[in-house]
């Protein structure tokens, strides 16, 4: 499969990780076996890391979740820069995402937990006590409007007439 086709395949999987390989093969105009092999290789090479569902937890009542974005300023360390401290932070199970940022702070830490207290405790006990961490600013997420390119809310209606020229 050409590189271009491979990118197409990944784009489609990114939108729908559960798509049938038969359908996928038709969409790519490739045979199914090639598609299966390519997916397997991309998994082996860790290009495809996992297949996740995007869930609107607000609709699942008992599952309340809080999430926070924490801006962290750190002292980079000689030789390894930010990687060492980042590596420490990312291992905490509470951390759902971690990015190195340009601008007024260095690391952006996404934390998810059951309660606000839980998140606060993580920040005060685990994060700010790391040697390299200079300061933290915690922002709690109030509402999800859009996530990974997906708009949370009602579908846009198809407003077209059923048949047109």
């Amino acid at each position, binding site marked *: 499969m050409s590189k271009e086709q491979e990118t197409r395949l990944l784009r489609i999987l990114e939108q729908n990780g559960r798509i049938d390989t038969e359908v996928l093969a*038709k*969409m790519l105009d490739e045979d199914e076996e090639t598609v299966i092999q390519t997916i397997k290789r991309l998994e082996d090479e860790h290009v495809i890391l996992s297949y996740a569902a995007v869930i609107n937890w607000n609709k699942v009542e008992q599952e309340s979740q809080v999430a926070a974005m924490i801006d962290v300023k750190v002292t980079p360390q000689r030789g390894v820069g930010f990687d060492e401290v980042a590596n420490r932070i990312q291992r905490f199970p509470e951390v759902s995402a971690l990015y190195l940022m340009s601008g007024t702070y260095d690391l952006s830490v996404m934390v998810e937990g059951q309660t606000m207290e839980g998140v606060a405790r993580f920040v005060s006990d685990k994060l700010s006590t790391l040697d390299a961490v200079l300061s933290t600013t915690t922002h709690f997420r109030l509402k999800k409007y859009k996530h990974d390119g997906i708009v949370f809310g009602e579908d846009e209606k*198809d407003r077209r007439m*059923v048949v*047109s020229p």
Partner: protein
Amino acid sequence: MSMTAKQTNHRLSKAVTSIEPSGIRKFFELASTMEDCISLGVGEPDFVTPWSVREACMTSLEQGYTAYTANAGLLELRMAISDYMEDAFDVTYRPEEEIIVTVGASEAIDLAVRATVDPGDEVLVVTPSFVSYSPLITLAGATPVPVLTDSSTNFKLTAERLEEAITERSRAIILSFPNNPTGAVMTKAELEVVAHVIQKHDLLVFSDEIYAELSYDEPHTAFSSIKDMKDRTILINGFSKAFAMTGWRLGFVCAPNDITEAMLKIHQYSLMCAPTQAQHGALEALRSGGDEVKKMVESYYSRRNYIVNSLNEIGLSCHMPGGSFYAFPSIEATGMDDQTFAEKLLLEEKVAVVPGSVFGEGGEGHVRCSYATGMKQLQTAVERIERFVKRHTKTNPPS
């Protein structure tokens, strides 16, 4: 009491009485009464206009741009169109003299015909094709003459067919590639062969290139970019399909100055100018819409592959269309005519497709399936069509 076309209603002009309402309307009426109907009958994108375009339009309203524009459209927009045509298709048109912003490609087609043909003239129409060409030619007092394309050439126009259809009265030809409903695309080399015949018989060309951006396997060739063709070509394009802006009613036409001047006379008296808000939106579409267009094209591309491969598997043979967003399978395997097929499919399986004969000679025996519909619906539609074809095919479909 409704009048059929056969009865003469003396209040109506002979011209309008001589044309029939579009065959698509009948299907629309039937399909719109059905619940849970999956429609592959829609001739427009399933995307909503890109947000930045909608936003620019709202801003123009906030800022009070609510007056008429110049007849030919905002000069700024015409300049953007000129740049776009040059960048995308390598054709140069002067914004002040050679471009008119119109109310959709639809108006542009009408202007082209009315500005150039006389009663008694024949205008060649490549068929199957968009429903409005022949009626507009008839309304202008001229005679539409079909030039057939068929599946043996993947619905491309050949020089032989064109030669056969030309008479002394032939004045112009309407080309329409990428094509609605066949999806056919013509390569530059193939157009050059046709151009040679056009030159020989001194025809004008109305080239409806509304689907230019939706050409999947090779870059689109603008007809006027072919050697010696620019001076005889009226190039029609618009925002409806590429930028998902059908309801905005905005298109444009590029042509030599003597022709744009003539068209502008009609346009200024009948329309004054294209809607101002839409023009502001279109300007933004040209400035920043490129990435969105790319995304939409990519999405049509994989859906095209999906539906065409699926239809062939089902036993409805279908060439791989190079452009637009229609598949045009033959329904020969079922032994039905296209009207019956479409009606039965709608009533029995609640899938709407458009019978090919609606698009003129050569369309019979085929149906138009628009794949500008979500993948989920396409998959369900394919399942339903498969069930339908199995039920109605006596011999097993080819595997």
